[in-house]
């Protein structure tokens, strides 16, 4: 349960790497890359098999974007949205089947069960919203969004930016971390005794199923909110 992270410091610079995170980020990215490339290796006008799946994902993200902004401005975010949703979904799923503990260090887990990772993604997304807000509408229009519709809302708008970032990252982290924590507790119960195993089997199955559901929903929500925040910044009318 309370496992430590395998930390490693980069040449005494004070920059620490959680090697478990590094491993899992790499694994998740590799899986996403392999799935995406395998799905788009043999592209045909008449889609079959896995191409149908990847096109369904694309349509899904397209719908998310279209529900927030018109396609003329939102079309450029399609690749970001697809990468985000697939990466987060795969990351969420990685921690479900098993957790690998070597010594006292937890090596195999969801990368999204770490607040640093999810907040990195959230900050990256919020950074992108500001970048595209300035790039597509100009600095003046971008600055104006902070005093609209009323000037006295300016402090609230500033707070909103930070709270958006925080909630976007922590929502994902909380859901996934809680799921993994409960799973590891159930595993602890299951391995304690025969009766414990009997008692843990049913909740374990239920919770794993629920975690799959939660992981999918969180991937969807993260992508959805990314598009919502982007549309707030790049759309003229909202």
């Amino acid at each position, binding site marked *: 349960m309370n496992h430590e992270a395998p*930390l490693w*410091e980069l040449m005494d610079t004070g920059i620490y790497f*959680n090697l478990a995170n590094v491993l899992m980020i790499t694994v998740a990215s590799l899986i996403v890359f392999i799935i995406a490339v395998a*799905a788009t290796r043999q592209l045909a006008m008449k889609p079959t098999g896995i191409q149908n799946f990847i096109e369904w994902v694309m349509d899904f993200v397209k719908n998310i974007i279209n529900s927030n902004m018109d396609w003329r401005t939102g079309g450029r975010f399609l690749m970001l949205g697809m990468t985000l949703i697939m990466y987060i979904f795969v990351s969420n799923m990685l921690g479900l089947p098993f957790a690998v503990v070597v010594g006292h260090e937890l090596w195999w887990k969801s990368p999204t069960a770490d607040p640093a*990772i999810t907040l990195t993604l959230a900050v990256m997304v919020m950074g992108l919203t500001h970048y595209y807000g300035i790039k597509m509408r100009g600095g003046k229009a971008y600055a104006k969004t902070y005093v609209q519709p009323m000037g006295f809302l300016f402090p609230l708008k500033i707070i909103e930016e930070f709270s958006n970032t925080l909630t976007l990252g922590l929502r994902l982290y909380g859901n996934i971390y809680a799921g993994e924590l409960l799973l590891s507790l159930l595993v602890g119960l299951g391995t304690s005794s025969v009766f414990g195993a009997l008692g843990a089997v049913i909740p374990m199955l239920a919770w794993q199923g629920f975690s799959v559901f939660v992981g999918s929903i969180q991937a969807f929500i993260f992508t959805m909110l990314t598009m919502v925040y982007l549309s707030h910044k790049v759309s003229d009318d909202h």
Partner: protein
Amino acid sequence: MLTSNFVLGAAAAHFNGGDIIYQLVVFIVLLALLKKFAWGPLMGIMKEREQHVASEIEAAEASRKEALQYLEEQREIVKQSRTEAAQLIENAKKQGEAQREDIINQARAEAERVKESAKREIVQEKEKAVAALREQVASLSVMIASKVIEKELSVADQEKLINEYIQEVGEER
């Protein structure tokens, strides 16, 4: 070497900024790689399909229009040929009528002509026969007369007699 650098039991004390950098870099690399190897081609094929569908729809629309036009043309042709046929039949009827009239008239004229010539011939034949008869009767009567009445008879008397006989013969006939 690597494991000796692990800081055990002090996880909470260290801010793992390396993870943040690593996550950021990996995500951007992943985004770039996927853009190049997966999403780009996928979007390309989807756009291609979109265009294909659009062009197919356009082609179908065009061919439908063409078919409609063709149908209209055919309809026009059928209509035209129908009127033409009706006209032809009408013409043929008229011609037949005229021909019939013509033939009948011709036949009538021919019949008239034949009748006329037959009449004429009859009259001619009759006259010829009468003349021949008259001649024959004359010579016969002369012969008879000369044979029966072998007495002197003046030419005038003779002629008178002959005429009397002929008259009788003519009345009996």
